[in-house]
């Protein structure tokens, strides 16, 4: 039930943002994330934008791999 998916905001009108989720255009409420800007990737859950997504996941994996290879600990 807590499934949420990332989507790019293409348009904002009033407190609603337009996003595309797997090929379908949807309007999501920005009530819980009023700081959203056009172009942001947001995490969408039950019709609401919940948080802005950073493209950090790949970096985190790489940092962890570097640590396993002996780099100092940075991952937390």
């Amino acid at each position, binding site marked *: *039930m807590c499934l949420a998916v990332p989507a790019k905001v293409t348009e904002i009108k009033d407190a609603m943002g337009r996003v595309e989720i797997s090929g379908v255009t949807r309007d999501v409420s920005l*009530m819980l994330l009023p700081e959203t800007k056009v172009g942001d990737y947001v995490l969408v859950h*039950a*019709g609401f934008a*919940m948080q802005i997504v950073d493209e*950090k996941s790949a970096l985190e994996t790489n940092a962890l791999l570097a640590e396993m290879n002996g780099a100092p600990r940075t*991952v937390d």
Partner: protein
Amino acid sequence: MALTRAEERAAAAKIIEEIRAMSQKLEKPWRFMEVCGTHTVSIFRGGIRQMLPEQVELVSGPGCPVCVTPDDYMDKAIAYARREDIIITTFGDMLRVPGSESSLGEEQAKGADIRIVYSPLDSIRIAWEHPDKKVLFLAVGFETTAPTAAATVLEAKRQGIGNLCLLSAQKLVPPALRFLLQDPEIHVDGFLLPGHVAVVTGTGVFRFVAEEYHIPGVVAGFEPLQILRAIYLLCRQAAEGEARIENAYGSVVRPEGNPHSREILEEVYEPVDAGWRGIGIIPRSGLCMKGKYEAFDMEHQLPLEREFKIRKTACRCGEVLRGLVTPRDCPLFGKSCVPTHAVGPCMVSVEGVCAAWYKYGQGRFQQFAQSGKA
């Protein structure tokens, strides 16, 4: 900048190798609990259990909101659904959850007006379209979902909608963790913490797990590689005797969570003692609407006359949800209890532990293990 498939596979192989090295000499396996139903499903789908060495066990916890919704709640929802003047709006997985004598799905087949919505906000439109009826949204979910229902109440109020109400069975994860930690029967060496709950709450609410119980916790994302990374971090803490709350889902989980969501949540709701199916009452683990929003609280607007009780069945969901037994230990599993005819709620929801075991556990383990290693 995403990793390519090949890079992902190489990273997964490396992480597993490190986990194996760390856990090799253990006398007793590490037991980590995932407390989120979406994690349960990803773990099965990704074949993660099969990739891990025997010394690292994963058990599922009470993290599927539908599964922990008690049958007295379903009976109340059904009693409302039977009224001609009420339209029920709900997320789809509530339809097959058994109440004591019926389910919402059966009531719908008999003609009750029950509509599946994608967002609680859809209830506002339905309320507009049917001014002569009351629309009842079944507000079920954890901290991730509760703000969306609370925001819907605020929006309905702003639009002056008088015919929309909620029936709240929303729940909070940290009190359930505390309850599990206090149970002497339950033994866990670490928690895989629910990423999308933490998007709202932030990571601080989980600190007590490490500070008071000296158990590590890692907030995890939902891709198989993100889960593996989190398991690795749990192993590393366990190996070094540490207990901290780490965030392995920094792409969306901020330490402070989402303050707007929490503000809206606190505006509309307050904590109450709540019943969890198969587990019992957990203090201050549920959310009820504050007095000032009673106009949107169904139990206040149209109180039901009968009393509703929790019934006993042979279902072992309670033990399954506490990680004490696996679904295979339930005598009904795969026999009288299957997804198309569920006895307990853990078999109903796609995120239920029993449903995940049933779907991915029968003969498919090998196949998944092989593709996982390929």
